[in-house]
């Protein structure tokens, strides 16, 4: 199930509280400020700082 624009709007980076945007393939949420990608696995966004990947 695609992430709704409403949910994307209220989600915030757990590290810096900043805004997030979807990756192009819609498989992660990007925090530009922290240079982190929070992966989306099996339709579940993983908003854990420890499991975020560095923004390539």
């Amino acid at each position, binding site marked *: 199930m695609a992430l709704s624009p409403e*949910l994307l709007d209220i989600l915030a980076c757990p590290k810096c*509280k900043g805004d997030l945007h979807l990756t192009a393939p819609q498989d992660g949420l990007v925090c530009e400020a922290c240079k982190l990608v929070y992966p989306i696995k099996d339709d*579940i966004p*993983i908003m854990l700082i420890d499991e975020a990947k560095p923004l390539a």
Partner: protein
Amino acid sequence: MPNQAAEHKQLIREEFTRQADAFAASPTIKNPDRIAILVDSVNPGPTTRVLEIATGPGHIALAFAPRCGEVVGIDLTAAPLKIAERMRAERGIINARFIQGDVEGRLPFEDDEFDAAVCRFSFHHFQNPAAVAREMARVCRAGGRLVVEDIGASEHPERAAYHNRFELLRDTSHTRFLPLSDLIAIIAAAGLEISSVRTDDIANPVERWLATSYTPDDKAAEVRAMIERDIREDLSGTDARRINGELYFTHRSAIIVARKLAPRA
């Protein structure tokens, strides 16, 4: 993050990965009448946006879905969330979404975005329940509702400690059941006005309760011995007893409903 907090979160993830299926199937956890009380206490409408903290297998969030605009469930552990997401898809629910996140840290949401925040049977796992209450309050709009359900311990500290000792033996991710007065104080201290408190007693069959948590045999034996002693000596305030030979004790559940107040100018 302090090591103790990190270790505790690791324990929670291990316990709820191991317990995921049994927990999701537990009659107390699934009971639709009990869940309906929580949904009714929010009294959602067609545009209400609800957050469920520590959603686990999502029973509460999925019960809200047909009665609200949108519901988000968040939990630290992947295994129960997969169950929640599978049930969501099976039921064709499109207004529920599950997110993995640290509910004892900063919630990954902006301020004032939810009309209600709900948390059931989870405050006793938290090392800092006051911080969780503050985060629930932060993400709720002024006038929004917070609903917290958890098991209360005795108001008598020694009896609460005895009860918490056998709960911790059974489930290593247990932190402590608070006396109801402490739970109310924590919620009030987050800047919320308590609207109602409702308690009811859940008769807890010890063998089923131990089976749900896959408690190792040696620990289960210690738990049974503590409850047997409780029957003889009245130590925990949980009305430990035998019914037709089966061990039981009582979980006194409390549902606290509170309202977020508008900031004062």
